[in-house]
């Protein structure tokens, strides 16, 4: 079996813009799920509202497209009602960090056995490019036309502080590493959070000097540094570049988890 068996071929091509990184993250997630050897009847994909949240519509398994920001609340319900199901949540940055922020930190605190894949495109892509809580400082959007003045959320730090069992961050350029991390997260009992930075050529890249799709992917490639390297630089007293994107597995621990398969 390959990942393409999990896709609904009759629904493709999907509605994402040309070059949108969400499709890449779907490939990586389905590859990881396929590698786990799970049955399609025992896997559920849950999502909220947004570009990223259209992903379960292209997957053959049971899925739930829920209200804005409440994907984790619905996923908690599924997992509590039937702990034998494998629940994977697709969510975006506006869905998870903005309107669903409280659901996110409390799911991390309860440490429910879910795998959350957050496609962070650093903007509200679907509604027209408004600034989101993860828009970097200085980035242009339709609601921050002179550059965002607010510091951005670091979702991995947030999940770590709130108590998730597995936290990892990769980008849509690092497909092999992202697949490996999602595979590891699916196997971990407890809350696994994988943040995937994706390019949004239509609403983010176009306003922020990434005119071509490849420009933003090249940016991820050149500015991503491994978290181990960042720690080494810090220990040696060397400066970490201010625009560096820390990548890698941040946390792997064994806190008591809820809703683990009996």
């Amino acid at each position, binding site marked *: 079996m*390959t990942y*393409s068996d999990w*896709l609904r071929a009759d629904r*493709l*091509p*999907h509605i*994402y*813009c*040309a*070059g*949108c*990184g*969400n*499709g*890449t993250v*779907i*490939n*990586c997630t389905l*590859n990881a799920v396929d590698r786990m050897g799970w049955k399609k009847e025992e896997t559920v994909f849950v999502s909220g509202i947004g570009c990223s949240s259209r992903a379960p519509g292209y997957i053959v398994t049971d899925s739930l497209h829920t209200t804005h920001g409440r994907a984790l609340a619905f996923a908690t319900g599924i997992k509590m009602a039937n702990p034998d199901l494998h629940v994977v949540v697709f969510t975006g940055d506006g869905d998870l960090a903005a309107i669903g922020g409280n659901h996110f930190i409390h799911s991390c605190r309860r440490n429910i056995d879910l795998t959350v894949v957050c496609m962070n495109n650093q903007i509200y892509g679907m509604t027209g490019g408004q600034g989101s809580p993860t828009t970097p400082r200085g980035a242009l959007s339709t609601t921050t036309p002179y550059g965002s003045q607010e510091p951005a959320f670091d979702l991995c730090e947030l999940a770590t502080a709130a108590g998730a069992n597995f936290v990892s961050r990769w980008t*849509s*350029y690092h*497909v*092999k590493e992202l*697949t490996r991390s999602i595979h590891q997260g699916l196997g971990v009992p407890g809350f696994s959070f994988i943040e995937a930075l994706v390019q949004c*050529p239509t609403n983010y890249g176009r306003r922020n000097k990434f005119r071509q*799709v*490849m420009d933003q*992917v*090249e940016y991820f490639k050149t500015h991503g540094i491994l978290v181990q390297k960042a720690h080494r630089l810090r220990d040696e007293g060397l400066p970490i570049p201010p625009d560096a994107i820390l990548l890698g597995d941040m946390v792997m621990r064994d806190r008591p988890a809820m809703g683990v398969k009996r």
Partner: protein
Amino acid sequence: MRLVIDERRCKGCNLCTLVCPYRIFSAGKQPNARGIVVPVLDRPERCANCRLQALYGRTLCGMCQMICPDQAISWVEEKPGEAQKVAIEF
């Protein structure tokens, strides 16, 4: 195995041209019937997965298929007896 781009799914983002270690993909010039400029393949028989997938029994490399946001890249089995092109690199 043969490397193919599904023209019904490709949206012409050219991300495959970024990742292929053999530089098999290059940006196309002519728009197809849907108005999309699909990348062109330069000697696809050089692809490691085309040559060695049957020998190893698993997908090798596969970066282009993984990064393709439109699930347009795949490998198809050749029909028995179909003429195969072989590339030798010095």
